[in-house]
């Protein structure tokens, strides 16, 4: 199916998720289990997205310039750099490694 369709469904789901919080009785969502799942899901998905973007290439695992980006970003974060600086460090590391002929 067209990508547009999935974009619009994702937008509708995002808005409805936010809206649900305003309309369901607080007791329902204050359930510790649901709070925990919302939290662990966020951590798990972001961790997964990080490694997929770092080492996956289709159905293969490869080590290329993106690993350099991961390391550079981790160093920047450890030094408490702001978000945009972290992103630029990642891009810079990957671009530099490619310029040097790796990955």
């Amino acid at each position, binding site marked *: *199916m067209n*990508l547009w369709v*999935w*974009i619009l469904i*994702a*937008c509708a*789901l*995002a*808005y409805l*998720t*936010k809206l*649900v*919080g*305003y309309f369901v009785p*607080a007791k329902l*969502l*204050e359930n*510790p*289990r649901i*709070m*925990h*799942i*919302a*939290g*662990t*899901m*966020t*951590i*798990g*998905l*972001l*961790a*997964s*997205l*990080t*490694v*997929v*973007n770092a*080492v*996956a290439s*289709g*159905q293969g*695992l490869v080590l290329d310039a*993106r690993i350099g*980006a*991961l390391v*550079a970003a*981790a160093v920047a974060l450890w030094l408490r750099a702001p*978000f*945009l600086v*972290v*992103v*630029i460090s*990642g*891009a*810079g*590391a*990957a*671009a530099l490694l*490619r310029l040097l002929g790796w990955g």
Partner: protein
Amino acid sequence: MSTSSAPMKLRESPAFKIALSLSIATGLYGVSFGALAVASGFDFWQTMVLSLLLFSGGSQFAFIGVVAGGGSGVAAMTASALLGLRNGIYGMQINAMLRPGGWKRYVSAHVTIDESTATASGQSDPDEQRRGFWTAGIGIFILWNIFTAIGALAGDAMGDPKQWGLDGAAVAAFLALLWPRLKGREPWAIAAACALATILAVPFVASGVPILVAAVVAGVIGWFSHARLDEGLEPDVDPYAEKHQREHGGKK
């Protein structure tokens, strides 16, 4: 002119000031979203619709991240929806805090994100909570969309995204979104388990699906978890970072 009896000026409100600087910091990284979306094959308007209508940084990056990795639209939509689940919890918290009525509910729902919720939650006075939530929510919405557009236009002009390391930028963006949530041992363990599950799944399932495998692992961990309740529910940019640093500064 007497100021003692006048209502607090907006400029003097701590929540307003915090929300404003947070809006600028968060809005700015809309540039990276815009540029990455275009580099991942999205056109200008698809990129803008994600920022205007989906409006939740993590979910937007997830959507384009799955597509960039060759995943299907349905996998991208699922990852984005699951990553947005926490916004439902935020909606409940803001509703309990501010009790918006009528049409305001529908507007506040749209700007219910990590940062606006965190700004409001950090204040104890109801008026300050209201100022913090609306200033951060609307401020970020406007700047995030302006900077998404700038990023998308710049990304279009850049040519080969790999030459500029834009795939590395995506890796860095996801790590930066994850980082503030890794407070304590359990979040690290969850992140490690889900990263491992992802790597193990990559060779065996279609692109995009390993992320959903990790979502199942995270869901199972959450079901049996006994950790503190707000785990994983931290903003990407902490509005009270300076205060937190001061409080913990001596222990370093």
